[in-house]
């Protein structure tokens, strides 16, 4: 296929890498390589001679990839890459989504765009999933704390579960805090005193 590109994905997490590969395949019959090893990264990338390299913006090895975009001496040419920032808006969107894309100089934007769009969408999805996971985790922890605080109040003051919760809520409102924060303070204090 004329539109096929050679794409390198630098990603340690296997699941994530597979997700990216899947979404890129939907945009064409590309030749895709996943590099998970940090060691020998610049050599491996140079050998594959890709058209596009995708790497998570939070990956410290970005600086290693970045090196391939500059010549090592005036006599040399960059190994293969050039950071194509011809479309600044696209680059900005990509970075906000959490992916940086290195594209070989001179490639037509219409060949690259579907690939970058797919990568950006995938990284936005990762970002959303991570946020959701963190929110769920926090909610679970808060629930556990509130349950423990309720239990302590029920035992010490001999009140019902509903009354215990109402007490926590009132205390939180009076202090301008979250119920979970009051519960945490109570649990910590109880641990210190016991």
């Amino acid at each position, binding site marked *: 296929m004329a539109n096929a590109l050679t794409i390198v994905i630098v990603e340690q997490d296997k699941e994530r890498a597979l997700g990216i590969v899947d979404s890129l395949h939907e945009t064409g019959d590309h030749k895709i390589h996943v590099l998970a090893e940090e060691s020998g990264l610049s050599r491996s990338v140079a050998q594959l001679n890709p058209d596009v390299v995708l790497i998570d913006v*939070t990956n410290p090895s970005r600086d290693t990839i970045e090196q391939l975009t500059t010549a090592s001496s005036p006599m040399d040419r960059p190994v293969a890459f050039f950071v194509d920032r011809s479309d600044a808006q696209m680059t900005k969107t990509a970075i906000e989504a959490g992916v940086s894309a290195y594209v070989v100089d001179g490639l037509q934007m219409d060949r690259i765009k579907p690939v970058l769009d797919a990568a950006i969408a995938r990284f936005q999805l990762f970002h959303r999933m991570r946020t959701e996971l963190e929110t769920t985790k926090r909610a679970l922890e808060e629930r556990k704390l509130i349950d423990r605080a309720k239990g302590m109040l029920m035992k010490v003051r001999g009140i019902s579960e509903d009354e215990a919760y109402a007490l926590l809520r009132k205390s939180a409102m009076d202090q301008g805090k979250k119920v979970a924060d009051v519960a945490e303070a109570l649990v910590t204090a109880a641990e210190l005193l016991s």
Partner: protein
Amino acid sequence: MSLKIVKAGYMPLIDAAPLIVAHELGFAEEEGLQLELQAAPSWSTLRDLLAFGQIHAAHMLSPVPVASALGLLAGLPRLNAMMVTSANGNVFGLSGAMTKRLEDQGFAFDFKDAIAAGEAVAALPRPLRIGMPFVLSMHAELVSLWLSSFGMVAGKDFLIQAVPPPLMAAAIENNELDAFCVGEPWGSMTVERAAGSLVLPMAAIWSCAPEKVLAAREDWISGNPAVAGSLMRAVLRACVWLSDPGNLTMTAEMLSPDKYLGLSSEIADRALAGRFMINSAGDIRRHNDFLMFEGDGICFPWRSQGRWIAERLIERFGISDAYSAKDAERVFRSDLYRENLLPVGAELPLASSKVEGSLAVPTEVPTVSGTMILGRNRFFNDKIYDPGQ
């Protein structure tokens, strides 16, 4: 009065201290700023966050703004160095295998003599693969300058490879590198983990090299002159505070928590004090001017420093005639420094450019209001750099 929010990024390194101290000790707040600090995972990402406006200012490698004026940052906007925030701070070291070769030749490992070290390193097998954090860095400029003066050609006799400092020890153990140049604590930590040795502090190549700068986009500075001025004053106060040896222990404690560097305070303390473990046997060497934050004109962004960096970059990358060192030096904003720091009594030299490498001892020079002392300024080969007009 509500505070102006300024988002500033940094790499979690010892020399990020000026921004961290400006926030922690309330210097920023006293200037009417709420400094929101954000650590970056790599220099490329920090540069992009700044270039695309997600942060307003950053702790940055001094060659990066100069590179932006020489077309080396393809398509990114022009960045400025508002002031220098630290001088020196890097070390050059060798892998275990290369250390062994030098030991067998009876090399002294005095951690001082750049000529003896250069001759010894030039006699090692070529090409010498040298790891450093980023291609556009004082690390790369000084290593290139030093080794090329011993007849080694970049790209042929020595290869510069960008490796994130935390991965440096692993790269040496995997035999991907023969040498490395990094800031502390990574030099000592690399030696500890990979059984190599430290050969020289980079201050032995240039005794007061501008290492990190406070950088911002040129258009952000011109659009927000008052905020930029407040930020510079807050950071200068932090640099002055950091230059007092009595504050060293407190600085180490301040940098140590996970939200900043995530290092034990002993290691941070050792790096701040310029004490190194030069080999895995635990030998310690000291270097007094290892890392400096202020005093002796360090924070002043000299045009001649910008010009020196620009000329080095032009030589290293073979940059086209469309760009000139004379234009690029202007990203070192001595004009802005004068304008914003005069009211707080900073020492302002009469000249904005100086001959680099010409001071064997600290020397008095005229300022706008009297005199000031400039620190020792020497290159390893006693060459003098005159930026001209």
